[in-house]
């Protein structure tokens, strides 16, 4: 089978979005403020999921660069919210106990300089 239905179901349930709704028009990418640095960009990310290439996306940096600004979801002609899909992908990665940030490895000066809220949010977002 090309598509692993379990992972697809997980992503669709966690995000509340239907992957097949996306018709790859690219409006999400066109309006995305972080797309310049993203790899893959939002529309390509959804395409990878449609093709069942989950690991390619889950292991990418793209899902972590999403600023969750929701412009993509707001403008999508098919009502697909990529922000929520990226969130679901991050959740799946985190549930698999992959930790992206450890306190020991963070520069002490950065801890002192970074805004506390951002610091806490980063730990929420990047750790299990």
């Amino acid at each position: 089978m090309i598509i692993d239905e379990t992972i697809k179901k997980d992503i669709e349930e966690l995000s509340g979005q239907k992957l097949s709704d996306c018709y790859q028009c690219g409006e999400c990418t066109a309006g995305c403020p972080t797309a310049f640095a993203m790899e893959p960009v939002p529309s390509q990310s959804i395409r990878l999921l449609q093709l069942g290439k989950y690991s390619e996306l889950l292991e990418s940096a793209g899902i972590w660069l999403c600023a969750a600004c929701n412009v993509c979801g707001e403008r999508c002609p098919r009502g697909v919210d990529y922000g929520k899909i990226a969130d679901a992908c991050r959740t799946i990665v985190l549930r698999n106990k992959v930790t992206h940030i450890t306190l020991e490895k963070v520069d002490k000066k950065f801890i002192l300089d970074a805004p506390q809220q951002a610091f806490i949010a980063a730990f929420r977002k990047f750790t299990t």
Partner: protein
Amino acid sequence: MKSEKKRIGVFVCHCGINIAGVVNVPEVVKRLKETTDAAVVIDHQYCCSDPGQNLIKETIQKEKLDGAVIACCSPTLHENTFRKTAARAGINPYNCEIANIREQCSWVTEDKEKATDKAAKIIKTLIKKVQYDEPLTPISIPVTRKALVIGGGVAGIQAALDIANTGYPVILLEKNPSIGGKMSMLSETFPTLDCSQCILTPKMVEAKQHPNITLMTYSEIDSVSGYIGNFKVKVRQKARYVDWDKCTGCDICVGKCPKKVSDEFNCGLSERKVVYKMFPQSVPNRVVIDAPNCLYIQKGACRLCEKHCPFNAIKWNDKDEIKELEVGAIVLATGYELLDKQRLGPYGFGKLKNVVDGLQFERILSASGPFMGEVKRPSDGKVPERIVFVQCAGSRDPENAMAYCSKICCMYTAKQAILYKHRVHQGEAVVFYIDVRTGGKGFEEFYKRATDEGILYIRGKVSKIFEKGDKVIVWGADTITGKKVEVEADLVVLATAMVPAAEKSFAQLMKLTQDEYGWFTEAHPKLRPVETLAGGFFLAGASQGPKDIPEAVSQASGAASKVIILFASDTLEHAPVIAGVDEDLCSGCGVCIDVCPYKAREIQVKEDGKKKTVKVIEVLCEGCGACSAACPVGAAQQKNFKDKQIEDMVKVGLE
């Protein structure tokens, strides 16, 4: 009702596996033989086939049957077929009934046993119905052989010409002062690039000069009553304030009129006078005064037009005139509009001057347009060095606008980009698209021509359009490379979605159905695309859905041929399954008159002058049954759907 029992034959159709795949047909036949008084029960692979119909015909004759039940698909499909078969076999066609065991049973029931039980029950209720069915004969009604075409665009003109050329009189109604519609606003047409006006105006002139066509422009429908073959239509001819019998269309008054307002024909890109002609080739070639803007009508000053008119044609006391028409058929060619740009928030809410829609750009390209065919942008009249074309602006967008594809935009965008390149050789044209749809004769080749001429196609939907200095910035993406794309343009053309021009209130006036967007609904999406479910109304052009010119013209000819078929005879048959009144029971209370949606019932006073009863106007009755349900004493009865009949059918169904 007959006291002796009818000999009824039951024919159960397999419909291939459509029915037999779920319903156990042999078991149904067995049960019907055991538990009903049907004289014959037979099954067949395809009852609607020639052998199937022959079997039914021969069995009716051989077994001397007086009624038949065909258990098959929906009566909307084959009731007609089998009633004709019954008639050929010599029995009254209204004693042949359909038991729908496909749409209402096999297609909607998964459990085979339950489906089999249900099929048998459905058939049993119909056997009961046929027992009570009376023989009926169709009602003959006269036909007024005169047509009304609503909408004077290319579809309306074509329909009117086709009907008129067969010799029947036609009234061509148009709400604007001139016929011509949207096609008269276009510069050139795809994929041949012939000038729109050049190919349309001969047809406009032909319609004007045709002895069988009466033009009624600047007119709108006030009310429609009656029924197929016999419509009564009230038309409001708007006050023109110009006597068209005297006016010659010389335009002297237009030159003298001191007040200017936004020009609708140029989509607001230029101004016109208050006394005006829509465009130079207007048909009829007459002027009208736009009363809400006229200085004299509103403020009592001016009268310059009157002073300078050499023909004394200005008529200040002109009023709306109501004209009553009697017609037998109505063609709806009401056309389309473009989606209002205000609905497209990320594309500037229609507030950015240098973001125009497709029709505005047609006017910019047109020789009779605001810039005389020179490509200029609206804000400062500068020749744009780069134009961005944005496709699917409001189409294929169920979240924000229209879910459907507007069909014509891919081709007209390619055309507009090509025409721009022809006029401005150094100009750059960039097209943002989701898909390029080129299903049509010569369309793909035309798209190839656009790319050959150096037009850059970028695959991605535009996300945002905004002004920066005197430029317009377009944010898009190229989904093929996965890169965001920002283009700085001098002018942006939005291929905005096509939306229906006919409003809901207009459709309600005719009691016609529209889909969720407001396009008129055809009687059958494949097999009856130019008819409506309301008899006598036919659809032409974009009133039914987005269409290009050749499609609109073909459909108009199709609608015209339906009108001609209707007019081929001076009478037509009306189905006799209608309501009746038992005068002995009727108290003349009139409840039924209030509930009847077709105005088919009225009070009559009996000869003795005392007793009042209700009478049915048979040609108007559509047999909906509202009166039967409302009648407090059971006097209103639907033929072949009498209370007793339905009661017994329900009893059988509940056994």
